[in-house]
């Protein structure tokens, strides 16, 4: 069995930041990077499957420049068998649709039995990259998976819905499943694993290697693009509850009563 996991090295925003000169992102000096939190859970789910049965290969893939290597090495340190990084400068500005197209090409090449992705990334929170890849592949897909069991060539899963509801379902494999936080308890990378991972190769692939043309990539291949990033002006929609602790508690209680219609 092969499990492919899409991961992302996300930007972690610091306080007192500035926007980039083009006004479309946070300036790089004010960002640190880490593996997307959801991806820790996806990887852990794959590693649990690997540990439960023989002959399971866990492959992680990301779309990003060489700074994304750190995230892949973290996955290798935890126990992933291989890592693939797809990049070309032409991919800059890609939205989830374009990224999903690249991931789908990697999945077509790798032919995994299961394709995990995180429900969303913590920096842009589109929540659609995994499902975009599924759409391109034409594979079954389930979002916000909170419980997973293998049953032969099917997966028995539970997924979260709004209002605290959950839905149980079976899905034929191969399928794309986006994994929710809390489905398991992610492990830490061991020191030995970190040292070993530092020496492991990361396979670099370009869009051309995957058979993608320029029109499939970047803004040209995207359904959306970031026009401007800005701090929203303080408006009447947000109410800052000020005053002493007792005063804030009283105001909060009044708001709750108003919304409850009491």
């Amino acid at each position: 069995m092969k499990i492919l996991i899409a991961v992302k090295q996300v930007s972690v925003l610091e306080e007192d930041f500035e926007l980039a000169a083009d006004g479309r992102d946070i300036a790089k000096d004010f960002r640190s990077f880490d593996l997307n939190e959801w991806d820790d859970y996806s990887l852990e789910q794959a590693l649990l499957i690997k540990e439960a049965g023989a002959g399971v290969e866990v492959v992680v893939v990301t779309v990003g420049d060489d700074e994304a290597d750190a995230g892949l090495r973290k996955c290798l340190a935890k126990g992933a068998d291989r890592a693939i990084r797809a990049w070309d400068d032409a991919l800059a500005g890609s939205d989830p649709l374009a990224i999903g197209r690249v991931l789908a090409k990697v999945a077509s090449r790798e032919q995994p039995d299961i394709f995990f992705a995180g429900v969303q990334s913590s920096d842009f929170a589109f929540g659609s990259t995994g499902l975009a890849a599924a759409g391109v592949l034409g594979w079954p897909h389930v979002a916000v998976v909170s419980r997973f069991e293998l049953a032969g060539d099917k997966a028995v899963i539970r997924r979260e819905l709004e209002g605290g509801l959950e839905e149980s379902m079976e899905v034929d494999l191969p399928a794309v499943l986006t994994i929710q936080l809390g489905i398991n308890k992610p492990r830490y990378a061991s020191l030995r694993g970190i040292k070993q991972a530092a020496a492991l190769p990361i396979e670099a692939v370009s869009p051309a290697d995957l058979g993608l043309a320029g029109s499939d990539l970047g803004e040209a291949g995207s359904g959306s693009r970031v026009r401007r990033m800005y701090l929203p002006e303080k408006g009447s929609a947000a109410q800052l509850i000020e005053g002493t602790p007792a005063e804030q508690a009283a105001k909060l209680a009044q708001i709750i009563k108003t919304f409850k219609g009491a």
Partner: protein
Amino acid sequence: MGVSMISAETLVERAARDQDVYAACALYGRVAPPRQARLEPVLFGSRRHRMIVAAFPLAPRALLARLCGDAEPVLARRLARNPALGADELMRLAQGRDSTVLARIAAMEAAPAPLLAVLASHPDPAVREAVAGHRGTPRAQLTLLARDASRAVRLKLAANPMTPDAVLDQLWSSDDLYLNELILQHPQCPLPRLRELQEDPLLAQAQARNHGTPPALLETLARAAAMAVRAAAVRNPMLPQPVAEAAAGDPAARVRRALARRAGLGQEIQQRLAADPDEWVRSWLARNRVIAQPLLHQLATDGAPLVRRAVARQPRCPQPLWPRLAADPHHWVRAGLAYRPDLPPALIEQMAGDSEIDVLAGLARQPCAPPALLQRLAAHPDSDVRRAVIQNPRAPAGVLAVLVEDDYALNRLLLARHPNLDPADRARLLWDPAPQVRFSMHTAWPGLQAS
């Protein structure tokens, strides 16, 4: 490389080679100027690293001082929140800054009084608010701020423990309930305000909390209609004991809970509270230092695990009760016992077979825990248990050696400072992948000034 070979030069060169800003921060204040110069490109060479240093609360003061003089606005905003800055640096940083930076500086504990005095008349209320809440603001400026147009400034002033009674009296308002609440609970609250019985429950509660409220008025408040007021009065140690003990019959459990926490409870009241239907009342009593030993025997068989745990944690819990508590069916009770600092070796051995993480973590901290048990717990899959071994001051070097490879960075961070860690194992932590571990190790690495 041998441990004795790791010199200042080696550490500095490696920090420079790896562009390790945290190791460089740790080393900067501990090496001679020529080596400091070698570290400066790491610390100041890129905007990104300057930003990291400016916000790093453990950075040496001398290093931050270098950034204060010509800091760009966003760097200044970071520096202005860094608690490592001293008065001189804050004074320099304040020169020509906008009100966002000045408000942050005025909120820093190290902000010097002369600067606060100047900022007290700043046109931006956010700056004056920070000044009004600062313990170091001169009295003259606190008096000035009592007439401030901004209510937020006056609230900060009323909450500042250094605000004198005359200023608090001046702040008293005929129509601001919440401002008056702050004044009534202030340790410097003017006595005439405390002598006057407040009818509003919020104000009466603040009055009941204040240790300066006259006992006669506290007696009245202890009989107030509002439960919160009665509970606050009973918690107040200045309430005469006989009046407080009358609360044993109070219909509100919250009031009786307050009573169960009081010092100096008489035997009869203790017995009454030990039979209270509310388990929190019994639990607070079991943790009270004045509780009689026979009552601890009684509460050790209480039906509520919360109460039995309180008995297990009671410093005066009689030793004959310990074996029973060690075998309690509820793990939270056993954990309460396992964390006692005076647990004897025989009981540690008895409890060593427990499978509950909380119990094992308690045992792992025991100075008398046998090395074989610590060795086993050092390999436990739960990081909390392993961390507890690291927190054991008597954990031997052989046990600690295993934990140098611990998966959890926080555990390695704590391990770095353990006095029993073998020097060779300590040296391995110098190159740890976690920056906080490396920083800690470089900060504490011995012999740098001499090398």
